[in-house]
């Protein structure tokens, strides 16, 4: 097996996996920060319950994100040493800034928050959470800056065959980065919103199912308590309906932001990476129409056998340029231009090894990009619609008794995750065959681009890569199972699972200076 393929699979698997945890951390952090802020402001115990419950889930998820994030920092050097050498003058800086200005804040202050209950004054304790949350949000910015430079290199000059940084500000304010950052953050809110909504729905449904909350014949709601479980009292109902509404609103706002920022990104893409946009639409022919659905062999690189089934005239032009008449170049016209500009075959040289002189395929895997793009938008749209419907269905203060709807609400948690993953797969595979895509925009950087085929570590063997790929995949699989099992247990346990003091005799707590929280 070609080490290049294994290294790419490894990067794909580890990154997509890492990005299951990341959007939940990014989105849920500010939500928990809001919940605790409400508690500090109002002293309403229901806000405390919400903070503790979702804080617990936040931490379980956070730690898996941390653990899998270390791999990202190392594997550029381990598996992609040629890439690291080529981009080092530019690419390392945002990573180091991320560490210094984000990771340190995030992890130090989260430690203070976890163990600071009852030890720090309330307001300072709240501030530690917010600093940690801001750390996460800042970390996302720097890593997106790094990624966006690979999509659209700016702020550099080609010196001795390598890009040399000449303007850090241009790198930090790269249009690609700003749009992608906004898209990522809003996408993360969509994930967090769906998460709250699904869990709260399940809890409210179970209260109805267990006969605690009863909807009477005249449609009024009677809210009760579970005599066997101190955690499921009247306040518990308020906790969940509140979580449900916050979740729905966060999701809807998140999705609205995703749509706006996604449109912005699309318009940039048409200029910066026209081939990526063309394959996203399976737009083989130059034109103005957007194919909602194409059939045939979408994966074929020469576009034979691709037939647009539903095509909306003018929509593609609107996405690209905001009007209905601009013609957008299709794959068939873009391909010769790419071949003329960057060569038909890989250069001969030690970097390329056995890959020297092989023909370059400038059309990214159309199957994956085309469907990735549609899954992203489809899952996102459905989840946004579902959040709005959820608000309507729960207007009387509880959820419908339907078991089927409850299952759907819980399953719906996955949709925004799927949309996030599909979006990343689309944008990363759509960049191929480049690891650093060229910058073709007017005033762009000449000669700065790198083929993925040249980026892999020349000295590293297939065996080593297979070893790490299998090792990491196994550990990740175990972690995923454990994380999901733990999250499900906490969700089923309700607030009392995160606040055992709700079920404990009060006398028990005061007999010693026991830590408020301990591992």
């Amino acid at each position, binding site marked *: 097996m070609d080490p290049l393929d294994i290294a790419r699979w490894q990067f794909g698997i580890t990154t997509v996996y890492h990005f299951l945890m990341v959007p939940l951390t990014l989105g849920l952090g500010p939500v928990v920060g809001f919940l605790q802020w409400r508690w500090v402001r109002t002293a309403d115990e229901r806000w405390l319950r919400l903070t503790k419950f979702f804080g617990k889930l936040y931490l379980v998820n956070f730690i898996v994100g941390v653990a899998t994030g270390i791999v990202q920092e*190392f594997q550029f050097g381990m598996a992609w040493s040629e890439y690291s050498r080529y981009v080092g003058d530019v690419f390392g800086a945002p990573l180091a800034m991320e560490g210094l200005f984000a990771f340190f804040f995030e992890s130090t202050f989260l430690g203070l928050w976890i163990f600071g209950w009852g030890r720090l004054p309330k307001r300072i304790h709240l501030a530690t959470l917010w600093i940690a949350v801001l750390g996460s949000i800042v970390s996302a910015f720097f890593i997106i800056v790094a990624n966006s430079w690979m999509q659209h290199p700016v702020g550099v000059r080609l010196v001795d065959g390598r890009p040399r*940084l000449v303007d850090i500000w241009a790198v930090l304010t790269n249009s690609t980065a700003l749009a992608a950052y906004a898209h990522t953050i809003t996408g993360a809110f969509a994930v967090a919103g769906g998460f709250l909504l699904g869990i709260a729905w399940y809890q409210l449904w179970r209260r109805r199912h267990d006969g605690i909350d009863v909807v009477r014949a005249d449609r009024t709601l009677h809210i009760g308590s579970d005599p066997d479980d101190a955690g499921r009292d009247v306040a518990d109902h308020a906790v969940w309906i509140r979580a449900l509404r916050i979740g729905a609103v966060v999701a809807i706002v998140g999705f609205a932001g995703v749509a706006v920022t996604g449109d912005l990104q699309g318009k940039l893409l048409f200029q910066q990476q026209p081939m990526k946009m063309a394959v996203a639409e399976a737009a083989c022919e130059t034109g103005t129409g957007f194919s909602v659905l194409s059939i045939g062999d979408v994966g074929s690189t020469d576009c034979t056998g691709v037939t647009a089934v539903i095509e909306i005239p003018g929509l593609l032009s609107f996405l690209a340029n905001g009007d209905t008449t601009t013609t957008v170049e299709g794959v068939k016209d873009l391909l010769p231009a790419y071949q003329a500009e960057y060569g038909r075959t890989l250069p001969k040289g030690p970097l390329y090894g056995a890959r020297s002189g092989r023909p370059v395929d400038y059309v990214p895997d159309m199957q994956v990009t085309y469907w990735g793009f549609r899954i992203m938008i489809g899952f996102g749209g459905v989840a946004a619609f579902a959040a709005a419907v959820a608000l309507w269905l729960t207007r009387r203060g509880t959820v419908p008794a339907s078991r089927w709807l409850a299952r759907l609400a819980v399953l719906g948690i996955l949709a925004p995750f799927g949309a996030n993953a599909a979006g990343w797969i689309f944008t990363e595979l759509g960049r191929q065959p480049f690891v650093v895509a060229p910058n073709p925009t007017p005033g762009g950087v000449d000669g700065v681009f790198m083929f993925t085929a040249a980026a892999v570590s020349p000295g590293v063997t297939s065996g080593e890569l297979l070893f790490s790929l299998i090792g990491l995949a196994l550990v990740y699989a175990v972690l995923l199972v454990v994380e999901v099992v733990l999250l499900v247990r906490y969700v089923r346990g309700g607030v009392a699972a995160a606040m055992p003091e709700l079920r404990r005799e009060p006398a028990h707590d005061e007999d010693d200076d026991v830590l408020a929280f*301990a591992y």
Partner: protein
Amino acid sequence: MLPTVWFVAIAVLWLGYLLLEGFDLGVGMHMLVTARSEGERRVMLNTIGPVWDGNEVWLLVAGAGTFAAFPLWYASLFSVLYVPLTLVLLGLIARAAAIEFRGKVHDARWARAWDLAIGIGSAVTAFGIGAGLALTTTGLPIDGNGDRVGGPFAWLNGWAVLGGLAVVGFCLVHGAAFLALKTDGSVRRRAGRLVVRGAPVALLPIVGWVLGVGLLTGGVVSWALVVVAVVAIVFAWLRARSGREGWAFVGIAAFLAAGAGSLFAAVYPVVLPSTIDPAWNLTVANASSSPYTLGVMTVVAACGLPLVLAYQAWSYWVFRRRIDVRHIPGLQEQPVLLHR
């Protein structure tokens, strides 16, 4: 000038990592080998509970800082050491997850499994980091492009083993000194005794590494630092013997700082020697980023690092209290079962 500043900065970042995560990793190993009961294990884990994650960031920043300031060093070191760094990653992942998950289910077998992950993960991490650092001070088989000559284990030699043992040994001593300082009761007593009895043996590999590199490439500065390190460790040992845990800990930290400083001073200006041809050595000059990038990074580090030091110090202040078995919740009472 700037490349040298950054060479020092990278040395400081590695030092910060070994100094802080050094005791985390040591405590992780002690949970497996030194603790005698569930209560003791939990006491140990909770001494590092609030701070281990922040300490681990020093590793990320040391790596990312090397990438930013010396991309060729980063690329060669990390790709040549592919196998040991994979093991380090697996160790770090297992350990991080275990620390968080261990207390989430009240079950003896569950806790035991994660104890293994913490202990073994800590040991593997310490060994791998030590091996990697030893090899960057003594050399790797790299060609003119910085790529490995030879197979996946071409890096393996006595230095790698010595460096691995050195960091494992240091972490055990440093971790014990930390436990003696941060706990009370049985753990405190046992950890204090361990420092006194264990240090002379456990620190032998790190002393061997420092002296070896000094003999290979050392100069006046590196030997002067060796003297400082010797003074510091003798001081630490004497203080530990008379039960002065705070001073013992400070002495061990000073020993590490001087020892690591001596290593970096000895290899300067080479950052990664080639064992095949000295002409292929990566040096401060030929492996560094452009002056502009180094300038940007200098501003970033000058703003960021003092801030980091300040708030990390504050977090240690907040959690300054010694921990004892009686502070650990849930040891005597019935486990709180999660509602199903």
